[in-house]
């Protein structure tokens, strides 16, 4: 942020005469930082929140496993519910800007119980993505070591369970420490990371297509219009699973829509930035998806995108054969973007937990702010501990932890986005029919989006009971994804009941009141 804004900002003065302190200004007068982000800046923030190199390596494989060559179709379709929900999200954010987001909004719309679970869903989703981000970063960390030293054995270190867990925990601890210290990635670093990701993903696609053209591709597959037909997906189960995965790849995009306050032109920039961001993202997703399918096919052997061995992290397998010696750039792009994302994502659960602590929905400690670093202190550490615990449990029980966590994550995002979207519909019900704009943005779009996501959630949850679901890991005859997803939600219910017992104010609706 530039200096002139800070200069022009009114400072909040509590004048003291003796010990009589008198408030001269309310905090609500906090100066606006209008004019700090332009269109390009907002797009960079949007892309950097999505971290496309990371989302692609994490979600491309599992999505292919569900929908095969209809990958491009599902990637396109997945954006629709995200867009519909984001409209509602924006309305809520404008009406009630709050660090608790889904938690606060759902509490205001549906009361404390559903609100609490909405907050829990958001926290759970971010905790899961933290553990996945750390794991992906670790995979590419070892892969990059192998590429740097020319010793492929180093890449296999990541399959050594104790070493993998230890390294992942170190990554989580480091990111937590950085976040706790209140350090944030600067704009210039963000620009470089985003530019580098786009460059490398573009390089990968070009290299893959030229292998196809030269006849050196692993399983050259001709692009067909059927790939773009979502109705060609085999079953509704596969469709639902695919959509909940592709929700994940757009997760973070909604940031651009809510950036009114810090953009140069709050009227126009957020909308344009959101549009431009999604264009860039869709183009890059389509290009990479097509390149991957054309080069590797969806076969279940060797480099095939359908090979379960490859699905946890597709670029770890494909970058080498496609990019040759330059595969190290892919490792670097994914390592840097997932590490940066790991650190910045810590902010989300920490702020939600802080907000829940503040509204007395969690123990007081969660509301603590570090006096030295001015960051949520207890909440940040709690998030790190939870992410570490989640990773250890998944890693030790699953045959393919990355795959299963991403599937569980998609489910969790559908859950809390669904609640949030319906919270928007219910909260604004009185004004829903006051005009065409209100009808669309406050009612129709979030209603459709919310219903779609909740349907995806229930369908995926039901299907995931099958022990063969996801990577095929199971406990007691139930699919691991189901255990993970439902286990997390059930844990939330238990914790909520415990909280209601020990700190009942919030649950009596005394802290956050319903309605306007």
């Amino acid at each position, binding site marked *: 942020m530039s200096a002139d804004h800070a200069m022009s900002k009114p400072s909040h003065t509590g004048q003291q005469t003796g010990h009589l302190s008198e408030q001269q200004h309310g905090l609500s007068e906090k100066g606006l930082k209008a004019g700090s982000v332009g269109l390009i800046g907002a797009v960079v923030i949007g892309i950097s929140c999505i971290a496309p190199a990371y989302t692609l390596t994490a979600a491309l494989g599992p999505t292919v496993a569900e929908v095969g060559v209809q990958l491009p179709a599902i990637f396109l379709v997945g954006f629709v519910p995200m867009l519909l929900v984001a409209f509602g999200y924006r309305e809520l954010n404008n009406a009630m800007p709050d660090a608790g987001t889904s938690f606060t909004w759902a509490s205001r719309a549906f009361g404390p119980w559903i609100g609490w679970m909405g907050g829990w869903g958001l926290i759970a989703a971010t905790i899961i993505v933290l553990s996945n981000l750390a794991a992906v970063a670790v995979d590419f960390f070892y892969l990059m070591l192998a590429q740097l030293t020319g010793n492929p054995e180093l890449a296999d270190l990541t399959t050594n369970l104790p070493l993998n867990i230890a390294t992942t925990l170190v990554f989580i601890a480091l990111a937590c420490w950085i976040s706790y210290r209140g350090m944030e990635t600067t704009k210039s670093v963000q620009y470089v990371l985003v530019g580098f990701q786009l460059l490398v993903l573009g390089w990968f696609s070009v290299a893959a297509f030229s292998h196809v053209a030269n006849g050196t591709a692993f399983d050259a597959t001709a692009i067909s219009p059927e790939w773009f037909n979502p109705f060609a997906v085999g079953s509704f189960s596969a469709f639902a699973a695919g959509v909940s995965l592709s929700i994940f790849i757009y997760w973070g995009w909604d940031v651009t829509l809510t950036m009114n306050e810090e953009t140069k032109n709050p009227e126009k920039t957020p909308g344009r930035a959101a549009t431009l961001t999604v264009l860039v993202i869709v183009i890059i997703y389509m290009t990479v998806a097509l390149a991957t399918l054309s080069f590797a096919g969806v076969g279940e052997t060797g480099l095939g995108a359908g090979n379960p061995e490859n699905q946890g992290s597709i670029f770890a397998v494909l970058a080498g054969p496609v990019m040759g010696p330059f595969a190290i750039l892919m490792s670097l792009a994914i390592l840097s973007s997932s590490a940066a994302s790991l650190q910045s994502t810590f902010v989300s659960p920490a702020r939600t937990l802080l907000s829940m602590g503040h509204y007395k929905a969690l123990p007081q400690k969660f509301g603590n*702010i570090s006096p030295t670093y001015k960051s949520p202190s207890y909440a940040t550490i709690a998030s790190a501990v939870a992410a570490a615990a989640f990773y250890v449990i998944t890693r030790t029980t699953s045959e393919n932890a990355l795959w299963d966590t991403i599937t569980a994550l998609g489910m969790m995002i559908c859950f809390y986005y669904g609640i949030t979207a319906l919270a928007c519909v219910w909260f604004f019900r009185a004004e829903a029919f006051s005009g065409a704009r209100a009808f669309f943005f406050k009612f129709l779009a979030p209603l459709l989006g919310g219903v779609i996501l909740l349907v995806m959630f229930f369908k995926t949850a039901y299907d995931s009971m099958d022990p063969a679901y996801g990577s095929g890991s199971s406990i007691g005859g139930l699919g691991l994804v189901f255990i993970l997803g439902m286990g997390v939600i059930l844990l939330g219910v238990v914790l909520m009941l415990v909280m209601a017992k020990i700190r009942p104010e919030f649950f009596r609706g005394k802290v956050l009141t319903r309605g306007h």
Partner: protein
Amino acid sequence: MRYVVGYSANARGHDAVNLAVSLALGRGASLDLVLVVPEVQQSGHAVAPKAGFENLLNEQAQEWLDQALALVPSGVPAQAHIRTGDSDAHALIEAAEELGADMLIIGATSTGIFKRFTIGSVASALLHASTVPVALAPHGYHRQEALTRISCGLGTRAGAEKLLDFALGMAVNRQVPLRVVSLLALDGGDAAGAAEAAREYAAKHLAAALPGGGQEVREEAKSEVVVAQGRSIEEAVDRLGWEDGEVLLIGSSRLAKGRSIFLGSTANRILRALPVPMIVVPSDYELKHLNHSASNDTPGEAQQ
């Protein structure tokens, strides 16, 4: 006179408030307690909106500042400000310039276990960029009474006169004695000769700085010159007697750009051993800031 205090709700912040009160008491200065909160960014996969967190942060900051104001005795006027900035040091310097402050006061650090002073990153950044004198409170500074003596560490470089003027101003205005200190680290050489040279040098400058060229020393400006020797600067500092209510003034290094502060290696070593607060004065610091007299009484530490 206005002093800006860099406050944080921890031991370091308390040290700073205590020192600020001590400095203000003999001088009738008012305090501006400034708490810097970081610029909140919107980041992460899931949207973590800044607006809500900013509100919580500001609420908490206001609460901290209310507690801080309660630390200030009723005789000292004080105001609290919340500033936003990515760099604490930058925001404090800006606040000091905007408020027309005569001094910036901060706590050195809260983590120095063996040493009294460890420069924290904020203090270090401040010392490199401040255009007003910076007072550093040592860890655990709890005194809240007026100063009893001003010490001035004199080097042999240019700018010594200005530093002495400043020190003399502080002493005269507070009606406390001034002690001009020369610290010598000797390894063998001609100890006595070096000490004598240092004493002469300091006395000469002191005489020049005193009103009327030292001929008619004003009653209230009691001054003395001492030379402390040791095998190291640290030892020399240790050997000197320090009063509880004393502060040491030193000038910033010649590496400083223009009117800003840069702490030289000697000053850094002094800081490590020093049991009392240190005030670092920027090179070429002009005593009178007539261009922004935000306060009603005489600005600056100039002699009256």
